[in-house]
């Protein structure tokens, strides 16, 4: 007889999941508070600075006019030299991607309507609510992690065998990845989004998809489950971050355009968010990692399919959508290298790609019949 199910552990796990959701909720409030408060403070500081600038320089418009000029030249010099010979080798219409170094130049000088650092490093004044929020999120993720581990112990296997477990473990990975990125980069402006999403996932798992601890069906008893699904979940967590950043990028670039055109800044809290270009560059880098992860997901899925069903590719619904997601993100990577497709259009592709990820995870798991119908429903 295989492993004996431990239901007490299962019960502990469920309790821990609820506790984690509760902690996240408080963290969410703190993140939201941070956004609200900072935007107010920043506005006040800005006004003061604008006055000061006005008296000194005799102008009341706090637009860093130098930005365009200095960033422009550095771009021209750098990318221009690049372009000359890159086109000898490249296909028509290939664009030089907006590079980070260019973003950096723009970032340092540009102050119009923005505060956050282009490199998204920690700096500046302490944001108490944000610190509280991060601390609470860490606490939440610890509880959540304990929930995932007890679930695994209770079932005697990896905790991703049905929808309930995909959601709870997926939410854990999303928050954990977010916190890991926070070590190096100040992405606290994404806090409300990531933590909010984790809460939704936990609630959905407990309410709509609750499943008691149990054994895996034979089709899932394979070490490929461990490899294939864990990489899929981690890539999805990264796609979650880039989705949020791309969405913010669209808002930010709209806002930047409005401000540059002399319009009023109606979205004060967006000051906490870096410039559209920095968002684009960082999300590109994260998307590149996630794309590699997704490529592995696809490949390992194919190897597993070969082992389980005798063919490595059969256009099963789940396979179709995994492929669609892969192609959309390949399109995204291409867009970043195609003239006229960087910036806003690339951001849309990143968003569409993520919507496909969500669709694949929810609708396809639930309503489409296929060989992959293991959602445990």
């Amino acid at each position, binding site marked *: 007889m295989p492993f004996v199910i431990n239901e007490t552990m299962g019960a502990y796990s469920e309790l821990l999941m609820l506790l984690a959701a509760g902690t996240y909720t408080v963290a969410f409030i703190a993140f939201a508070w941070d956004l609200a408060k900072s935007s107010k403070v920043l506005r006040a500081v800005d006004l003061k*600075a604008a006055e000061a600038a006005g008296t000194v320089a005799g102008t009341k418009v706090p637009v860093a006019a130098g930005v365009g000029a200095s960033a422009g030249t550095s771009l021209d010099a750098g990318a221009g030299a690049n372009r000359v010979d890159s086109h000898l080798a490249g296909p028509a219409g290939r664009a030089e991607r907006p590079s980070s170094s*260019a973003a950096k130049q723009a970032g340092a000088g540009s102050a119009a309507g923005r505060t956050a650092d*282009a490199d998204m490093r920690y*700096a500046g004044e302490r944001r108490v609510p944000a610190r509280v929020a991060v601390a609470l999120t860490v606490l939440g993720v610890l509880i959540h992690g304990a929930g995932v581990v007890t679930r695994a112990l209770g079932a005697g296997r990896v905790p991703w065998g049905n929808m309930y477990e995909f959601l709870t473990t997926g939410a854990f990975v999303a928050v954990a990845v977010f916190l890991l990125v926070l070590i190096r980069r100040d992405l606290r402006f994404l806090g409300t989004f990531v933590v909010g999403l984790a809460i939704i996932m936990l609630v959905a798992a407990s309410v709509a998809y609750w499943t008691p601890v149990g054994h895996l069906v034979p089709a899932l008893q394979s070490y490929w489950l461990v490899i294939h699904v864990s990489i899929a979940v981690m890539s999805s967590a990264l796609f979650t971050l880039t989705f949020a950043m791309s969405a913010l990028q669209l808002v930010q670039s709209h806002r930047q355009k409005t401000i540059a055109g002399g319009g009023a800044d109606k979205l004060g809290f967006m000051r906490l968010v870096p410039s559209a270009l920095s968002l684009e560059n960082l999300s590109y880098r994260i998307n590149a990692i996630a794309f590699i992860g997704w490529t592995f997901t696809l490949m390992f899925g194919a190897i597993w399919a070969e082992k389980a069903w*005798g063919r490595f590719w059969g256009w099963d619904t789940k396979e179709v959508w995994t492929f669609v997601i892969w192609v959309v993100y390949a399109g995204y990577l291409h867009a970043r290298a195609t003239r006229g497709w960087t910036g806003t259009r690339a951001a849309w592709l990143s968003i569409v790609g993520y919507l496909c990820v969500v669709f694949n995870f929810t609708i396809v798991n639930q309503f489409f019949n296929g060989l992959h119908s293991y959602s445990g429903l």
Partner: protein
Amino acid sequence: MSERVKANKKSPAPVAAAKAEAALPALGPLGMLRWAWTQLTSMRTALFLLLLLAVAAVPGSLFPQRPANPFVVTQYIKDNGDYGKLLDTLQLFDVYSSAWFSAIYILLFISLIGCVVPRAIAHYKAMRSQPPRTPKRLSRLPEYGTLVVPADAGLPASDAINSAAGLLRKRGYRVEVRDDDGARPSLGAERGFAKEVGNLVFHTSLIGVLVSVAIGGLFGYSGQRILVEGDTFVNTLVGYDQFTPGTNFQSSQLQPYSIQLDKFDVTFDRESPGKFGQPIDFNAQVTTKETPDAPAKQETLKVNDPVTLGGTSIYLTGNGYAPVVTIRDGAGNVAMQGPVVAKLQGENYYSSVVIKVPDARPEQLGFVGFFLPTAFITDAGISFSGDPDLFNPQLTLNSYFGDLGLDNGAPQNVFELDVKDLTPLNNRNLAAGGITLAPGSTYTLPDGKGSISFDGVKRYVGVDIHHNPGQVSALIFALLAVAGLIVSLYVNRRRVWVRTGTHADGRTMVEYGLLARGEDHRLAAEAQSIRKLLTEEWQLAADDGDAGGGSDAGVSDPGVSDPAGAADSVPTQQTPSRQGHNGADSVTIPTGSAGPTKDQ
């Protein structure tokens, strides 16, 4: 091609010209072809085709697909009338072999080849040529810095350039020193050629994957077979219940190996409350022989764990019960004896049974009914299976006699009995009632038509047998593709230029600049590392980061003025052009420019 791209950028006029050219290609057929080729292999077309491919793949998940579910498709078309037929005309039930889907990916791959080949040639040339000439104004590069070697260090400009060249070579750069003994020696260095190689490997491997898949489709085959415990399958065309050959399949490809199902065990979950009775393990013991004369081998066949034999893989894909029956005919002879495969219908192995007895005399016999491993009957008289295991096996049947219609040779579905031309012997509405059998019991048919005994129950498995000659190469190309992808995304292609000169007072002035090709967020870090290397090599006083802020306006711009002269205005070592990041997060608005700016 490249000229036009550049022209497009400069002013709208050439764009219009290009468009006009596109609209009325007075180019002759050859020119037209070239024009079409340029369009097809452009980055924008590639992107468009990629996105189109993604969109085109979607309908395959919305409509049932013939290769996977032929019966569902037939039913769907029947249920949906003209709409179903329209969908069928549009090949929406065969999306992945449809003309339009194929067109998209074939175009994409032609575009891919058209992209990869010229790029490979260009890159080969680039790898064999020297780094590009030293730009006049290094200070315009995204990363730029200067160093000053004191006069008493005894490092003349030419030595400095050679020493820098050595350091860069060690760092993996390809270096060319120019104007070695001139007044302003310089060097150009480049590294990261692997990036483009990786990218080319990635794209080429995708073609490899596609070709492998095509080979599998041409020369592969697959089939299904049901094996009851004790049955042996021999790999010949007649051995299969169902067989799907590839386009170029030849029956001589089949190696006549054999596989016998000795025993099949299922373990059911007896603990989890919500999943009581769910199967948690399937285990088939088989005896295999590579060839008819080869020694027999014991193997285990499980889900996720196929047996490989004679170039094929054998997969466990289904299972069920096969009640063993003995049927005697009206003449008293055994007309049939053996297991009957029961087809799964519902929960807990609730299965349907069809028995055709063409050998029964004087009248052929037919039985239709159900097998239940653990039979329960509700008060309403509805029977169901309460458990997947054999706790209370039961066979309930109706019987018929007459001509089964098998003698004219028309193929029939073994799981269906057409009772239209048969006379019922047993069913609930007849006086004789239906037949209900437990293992070991026998029922005598009315009117002396014979008898049926339920002798016991065996298990059966369904196996899928596949041969795909493209599989291994598909895997190899896929792995190559990922390796290429990782290299292309994580190797950075960089260029470094260094220029030196001697100041009037004997100091050696050094300036350097870095440029990345493509995305490179670590260029600044590389600039810093190189600066550190040079500083250590020449034993310069370690610079303190931001010291150089401020008056760098006139920093050596060799293109305009003598670096030696210009360097006069440099109070200390100039720091890399990386700007003060930490400052950028502060909430004050810089009224002037903070930190070092570039000279224009």
